[in-house]
C-alpha cells in the first residue's frame, strides 16, 4: 500500500460489462438461493405428532402465526355468518363423513347423555330433554367444507352461549379452548373459546325442523358456522374446557388447527 493506484474512470463498455456481471451474478445467486430455499421447505421435516401433526414444521409454524394475526386483527363475534330464508335450505343435506359414528358401532341413542367435564373434575350429565327445554335457536346458513363445497342448510338447537349461561359455565369459558368428542372418542375437535361462544354456534338436535338422523350426528351435534365443516362434530359425547389446545382429529392430519372462517 505504498503507492496509490490511480483509478482510471471506466469506459462505457466496461461499465456495461461490470453492471451486467453484477446483475446477472446477483440474479443467478438469488435464483439458486430460491431453488435451495424451496427444496429446503419442500423437504422439511414433518412435525412430530402431538396436538397437531402431519404438516411440514415451517408450514405449521406459519399456520399458527397466521391464526394469531387473523384472530387478533379481524375476528369479531359481531361478524355474523350470512343467513338465508328457510326456503333456500337444501332438502337433502350433504353427508360427508361418518368418523366416530360408524354404523357398525354400537350406540344406544336412548341412554345417551351429554357429559360436560369441568376443569375441577366435576361432571354434568345432561339429557336431550334437558337441552330441548332450553330456548331453541334456528339457523339457515351456508355450511362450508375445507374441500371447497358449500351448502345452505337449516339447523335447530340450543345456542352454545345459552347453554353456557344456563349451566353456569361462564367460569369455564374463561379458559381458552373448548374440546368436544364423540362418545367413542374417535372423532374430536378443539375450538378456541371465542369461536365456541360466537352467537351463532349451536348444539343442534334438528335439521330441516326434524330430529337429526344418525348420519348427521343424532342426537346432538355441533353447528359452528365460523368454522369449516371439519370442526362441526357429529354426535357429541363429551364437552370439556382447557387452557391448552384439546386434541383435534384433522389438525393431527395436517390441517390448520384454527380452521376459522
Amino acid at each position, binding site marked *: 500500500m505504498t503507492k496509490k493506484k490511480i483509478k482510471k474512470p471506466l469506459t462505457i463498455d466496461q461499465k456495461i460489462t461490470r453492471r451486467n456481471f453484477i446483475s446477472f451474478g446477483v440474479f443467478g445467486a438469488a435464483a439458486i438461493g430460491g431453488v435451495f430455499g424451496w427444496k429446503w421447505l419442500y423437504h422439511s421435516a414433518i412435525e412430530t405428532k402431538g396436538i397437531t401433526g402431519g404438516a411440514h414444521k415451517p408450514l405449521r409454524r406459519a*399456520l399458527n402465526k397466521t391464526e394469531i394475526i*387473523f384472530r387478533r386483527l379481524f375476528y369479531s363475534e359481531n361478524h355474523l355468518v350470512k343467513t338465508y330464508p328457510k326456503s333456500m335450505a337444501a332438502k337433502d343435506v350433504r353427508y360427508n363423513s361418518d368418523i366416530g359414528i360408524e354404523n357398525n358401532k354400537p350406540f344406544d341413542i336412548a341412554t345417551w347423555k351429554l357429559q360436560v367435564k369441568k376443569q375441577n373434575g366435576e361432571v354434568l350429565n345432561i339429557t336431550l330433554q334437558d337441552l330441548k327445554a332450553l330456548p331453541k335457536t334456528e339457523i339457515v346458513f351456508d355450511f362450508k367444507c375445507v*374441500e371447497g363445497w358449500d351448502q345452505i342448510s337449516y339447523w335447530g338447537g340450543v345456542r352454545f352461549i345459552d347453554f353456557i349461561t344456563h349451566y353456569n359455565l361462564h367460569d369455564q369459558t374463561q379458559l381458552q379452548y373448548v374440546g368436544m368428542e364423540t362418545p367413542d372418542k374417535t372423532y374430536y375437535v378443539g375450538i378456541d373459546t371465542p369461536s365456541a361462544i360466537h352467537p351463532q354456534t349451536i348444539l343442534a338436535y334438528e335439521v330441516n325442523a326434524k330430529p337429526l338422523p344418525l348420519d348427521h350426528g343424532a342426537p346432538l351435534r355441533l353447528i359452528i358456522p365460523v368454522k369449516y365443516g371439519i370442526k362441526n362434530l357429529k354426535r357429541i359425547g363429551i364437552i370439556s374446557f382447557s387452557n391448552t389446545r384439546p386434541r383435534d382429529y384433522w389438525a393431527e392430519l395436517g390441517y*390448520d388447527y384454527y380452521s*376459522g372462517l
Partner: protein
Amino acid sequence: MRWTHWVNFPILTIMIWSGMLIYWADDEYSITLFGHTFFKFFPEWFYKKFGLVHRLSEGMAFHFLFMWFFFLNGILYVAYTLFSGEWRELVPQKKSFKEAWLVLLHDLHIRKMAPPQNKYNAAQRIAYTAIIVMGIGSVITGLAIYKPVQFYYLTWICGGYHFARILHFALTIGYVLFFVIHIVQVILAGWKNFSSVINGFEVIDTKPKPVIEKAHDEEKD
C-alpha cells in the same frame, strides 16, 4: 420493478400449484355450453401426472404461507411504481385502447406499422395494468373465500362465496394465459430485452455506434 417481477414468478407458481392441490378436493368447474361439457377442470390424468391427488391439507398449508409473500410483493411493486412515477409509463391512456388493437394487428403480422410508443406500447400498458388488477382481484377473492365471515363485505362484493371461488379460479386461469403470451412475446423480443429485466438497462440504447439508424426503429415488444 425488476425485483418484484422475479420474486413474483416463483411465488405465483407456488400459489397456482398449491391452489391446484386445494381445488382437486372439489373440482366442480367445467366449460359447459347448452348442456355440452367441452372441458372439465381438470381431467383425471392431469392430476395424476402432476401428483395433485389427496394433498388438500398440504396445499392449504403452502397456500396460506405464500399468500403473505404474494401480498407483500404486490404491495411493494405497486408502492414502488407509484413513488417512482413509473406508473405513468404503465397505466393505459385514453388512446391506449385503440392503439392496443393496432399493436395486436402488428404483432400478428397483419399490419406493418406499430403505433409510436414510450417504454411500453399500448397493449403492454393494458396487459401490465390488467395483471396488477388481477393480482388485487386474487387477493380480494382469496380473502372472500378464506374468511367469508370476517370479510363478509368482500364476499358480498365478489358476488357471494360461490362466485368468489369461481372468480378466484378464473383469475388463475388468466395468469396461465398471460404467462403463455408473455413468454412468447419475451422470446420474440429477444435476449437484450430479456436481460434488461435482469440488469435494468438495455445495452443498445447506450452504445454509441448505431445512433443514427435507430431513432425510431427500436422496439421492445
